[in-house]
């Protein structure tokens, strides 16, 4: 059965690592929905959040293949029930009529977003939240005319005190 999977990986933060990981995805035929990378706790480490659609064997293979990469320190799936997921989007909207700006600001407030840039014919709205919320806002504002969208891709942390171990790759990975 196809499901969405949310995968987090702690990886070496050095040149060439993203290439090695992306290469594995394309070589093994995995389709990635979104991927975000950034610094994390620990020296020279980055945290990668990957979302894929697929069945369980596919997700398991992806995790095993990721875990096999030497630059991947550890990898795990996140349980959506016990995870905080966020994405950030910057959306540039067209202002055609004088009322547009007020309406957009109303919508933005309802979605707990912020207007971060205002020009005579456009505004940029910053929205943070789950991908569903993001899509809802985009659908709502389609009628104004969207000039550009930049989305970061999902990033996520599990709730509670536990974390992905970064000291040692568990033996089950090999």
């Amino acid at each position, binding site marked *: 059965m196809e499901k969405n999977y949310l995968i987090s990986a702690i990886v*070496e933060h050095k040149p060439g690592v993203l290439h090695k990981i992306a290469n594995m995805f394309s070589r093994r035929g995995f389709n990635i929905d979104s991927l975000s990378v950034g610094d994390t706790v620990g020296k020279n480490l980055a945290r990668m959040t990957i979302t894929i659609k697929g069945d369980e064997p596919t997700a398991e293979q992806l995790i095993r293949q990721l875990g096999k990469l030497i630059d991947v320190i550890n990898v795990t799936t996140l349980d959506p029930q016990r995870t905080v997921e966020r994405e950030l989007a910057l959306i540039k909207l067209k202002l055609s009529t004088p009322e547009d700006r007020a309406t957009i600001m109303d919508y933005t407030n309802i979605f707990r977003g912020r207007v971060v840039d205002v020009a005579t014919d456009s505004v940029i709205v910053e929205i943070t939240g789950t991908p569903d919320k993001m899509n809802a806002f985009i659908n709502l504002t389609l009628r104004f005319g969207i000039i550009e969208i930049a989305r970061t891709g999902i990033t996520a942390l599990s709730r509670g005190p536990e974390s992905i171990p970064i000291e040692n790759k568990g033996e089950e990975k090999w």
Partner: protein
Amino acid sequence: MVEMSGAKALLESLKKEKATVVFGIPGGANLPIYDALVDSDIRHILCRHEQSAAHMADGFARASGRAGVCFATSGPGTTNLVTGIANAYMDSSPIVAVTGQVATPFIGKDAFQETDTIGITTPITKYNFQPRKASEIPSTIKKAFYIATTGRPGPVLVDIPKDVQSQIANIDFPEKIEIRGYKPNGVPEMESVKQSARLLSEAKKPFILAGGGVKVSNAYQSLQKLSEFLLAPVGTTFMGKGCFREDHPLSLGVVGMHGTPEANKIILETDVLFAVGVRFSDRTTGNIDEFCREAKIIHADVDAAEIGKNRIADIPIVGDADQTLQKLLESLRKRMSKRKRSEWFETIRHVREELKDNSETKETGLTPRPILKTLRRLLPRNAIVTTEVGQNQMWAGLFFESYLPRTFISSGGLGTMGFGFPASLGAKVAKPDVPVVDIAGDGSFMMTENSLGTSIVDKIPVTVIVLNNSVLGMPAQWQRFFYNRRYSAVELKRIPDLVKLAQAYGAEGVRVGSTDEFERAVKTALNSEVTTVIDVPISPEEDVLPMVPPGNGLSSTVGVA
């Protein structure tokens, strides 16, 4: 700390890893390394093409279990290595390839002989490095050997820019290195071992499928003990050939497309399949949906990513093959005593008697079967045989019995024509006291035949047996079977006179016309100081049979005598 060049640091680091032989070719971007070689006691073997350098390192590695080392220059030197590296990757063979790269200021500028070595080799190496400072070279080389030879072995490439090779720096040789993302300890989980023991103790028709992983972890004896304790027959994958002696009463030979009829028949009857060090390749399983459908599968492999990749396992065991086999046997001993001969054993014996290709004298003409049976009789049990790729390889798999691990060396995964001859030279360098024979076809041999130069100049005597049908035999056979005999571009028409060709290089060449002449030629070759090419003309209509046609299940074997 010692002051020296990056190139010298490289050679010193290799020596610390006990790498005393290097196969390679110099060029613009690795000249500082070759300059440092002049003052080094490392033995350098000059190849005639970089593909052969990689295959020699690979043959060295497979025969010895130690990493083989090869050198090439940037650009075309490196791209020529690629086939050899991909070959080693598919067959999990530990080689360390050191390539020259254009100097760091030129990287990315499309300089002369520049190529994106890291980009090109990422999907075909276990790991690759590009040190940007001479001081990084010792730790990089140490890591390269560690990664190449541990866990599931594989090729590692170190790409060193020319200016880094000649840079003088204070060099420190680390005793220990730490790679935080790589922990290849292969201790199997006791819980899955216990579950497997229970399943195997209850099995009525257990079957062991053993692969290349058994060779890698030197699990030859543990495998035999387990098989004898359970009275379970052993079939091997093509890569596993030799990890269970093929004259053992419980040996069924190779399973798969050109497997033995007895192995392909019995494996489909099993109720519990214990697969160790295998990856369920399509050439082994045939149509995977029809493969052991009713059986419970225990899959033991050191590489966790093999679990569930091609075949879902009922019980996965991630760990080293030898440790897994030992723990499993221990666990079984607690549950049961050595299994007595049962109906299953009688079935195996019966099928073996009926189907096993035992007789040596059925044919006497110059055909692959009697040639290879004669060869087996003439060679000591520990002789090393390499093969080329194609019909010659599959005939060797079927008709040439193998008794010891690391004595049957063949390109299983990538199926690289031209592998066998340079690999035989690498194997001979690793094991100079053991006779080494390349079982070849004319098409494959012609791809790397120029390694005869290396064999003569560097005094590496091997025997090459060319089953010469003047066609690209395997494609010809497929065109015969599946394309209605419409031959397309398979006739080589004019193979050079192999006797004269060998002689032109300073090797011995002999053409034989009967099995008696063949026998004499082999005996002479085994005592020769130089490489001998034995040209054995065979019919171009000769097929490799039996065969499971591609896409079919193992039950669809055709051509059983």
